[in-house]
């Protein structure tokens, strides 16, 4: 069996970290929480469109994940992502039903889950972003601003300017490629 040390965990894939639970449980649990927390939070933001609700989801999902791992219910280490995704869906359904049946678990695992809340989203350098937006073509800038201001779909943006959805997607594709290149200074 491979022996894991804390520094090696950082470089290991998710499944290897799950396998490391039997040897260094607290370090492996902390590493799994550190990795999964931002992913769960993004899932929450995408489906709930609310930062506080996404934070609540993250905490609940991490608690359920830790409980399942400790009880050996995640049998296949390679399937952790599927397990977490399924849990996200279930918890959101619960949240929408207004259920709060996690008080006991929260008491037991809250410390671990709370300690690994992902860092807050950090907007990029606004000066640089404004500069990059200025470099876009007029249509690209309008479409990117309107699409991202309140997460409007291509179809909605297309309707506003009398363009086809396919055309808006094409323009957005060009704009995002340029924007990403400009923001990263061509490093990616």
């Amino acid at each position, binding site marked *: 069996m491979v022996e894991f040390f804390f520094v090696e965990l950082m470089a290991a894939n998710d499944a290897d970290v799950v396998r490391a639970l039997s040897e260094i449980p607290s370090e492996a649990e902390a590493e799994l929480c550190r990795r999964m927390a931002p992913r769960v939070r*993004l899932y929450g933001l*995408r489906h709930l469109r609310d930062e506080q609700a996404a934070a609540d989801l993250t905490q609940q999902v991490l608690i359920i994940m830790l409980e399942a791992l400790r009880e050996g219910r995640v049998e296949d280490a390679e399937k952790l992502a599927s397990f977490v995704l399924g849990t996200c869906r279930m918890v959101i359904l619960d949240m929408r039903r207004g259920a709060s049946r996690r008080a006991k678990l929260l008491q037991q695992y809250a410390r671990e889950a709370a300690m690994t809340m992902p860092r807050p989203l950090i907007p990029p350098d606004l000066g640089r972003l404004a500069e990059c937006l200025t470099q876009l073509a*007029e249509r690209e*800038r309008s479409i990117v601003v*309107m*699409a991202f201001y309140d*997460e*409007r779909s291509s179809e909605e943006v297309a309707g506003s300017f009398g363009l086809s959805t396919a055309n808006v997607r094409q323009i957005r594709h060009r704009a995002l490629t340029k924007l990403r290149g400009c923001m990263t200074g061509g490093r990616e």
Partner: protein
Amino acid sequence: MSCLRTLNWDLLAEYWSGELDEHREPFIEEHLMGCGLCSASLESLVETAEGIRTLARRGDLRVVLTREFLARLEKEGLSIRQYSPKAGSSVECTITPQDDMLMARLAADLSAYTRVDTVFCDASGVERGRAADIPFRAAKTEVVLNEPASAARKFGHDVMIIKLVGVGAQGEQVVGEYRFNHSPSPA
């Protein structure tokens, strides 16, 4: 799940705005949940979107918007100073510290054109800048142009002429000319 093929921003934007169909979305979500690299890329896209929202709310972008979008900004409580001169006329304008955004609403019949440029001229009519191929809806009779508020606050007494220029088979044609006589805010 390993990341043999990283998801690009375009696909991530489709996911984020709920445009993926019911077969693709679960696949993408499963990948994101198992891939730190792609979820970090989505995080960066979401942060950029937040940055765009911040810049738009500050009115710091020169960008063509729509009447409906403008209405939504107003509904959010933003203070928007708007000027709607008729084509061929001039308007006295300013921006105060209380204004969040500055908009020029340029009325014109653009139905005969497939391409429209916005041309920015000084008081003597000399072209100082051009926004080529702006988005517009031919059926609507107005171009809503957001002018950068922070730059406008620094202007003294100044004149800016904005022209809407239609580009068609016969070449360029000025569809509308609007003169903005700017004075600094007295405050």
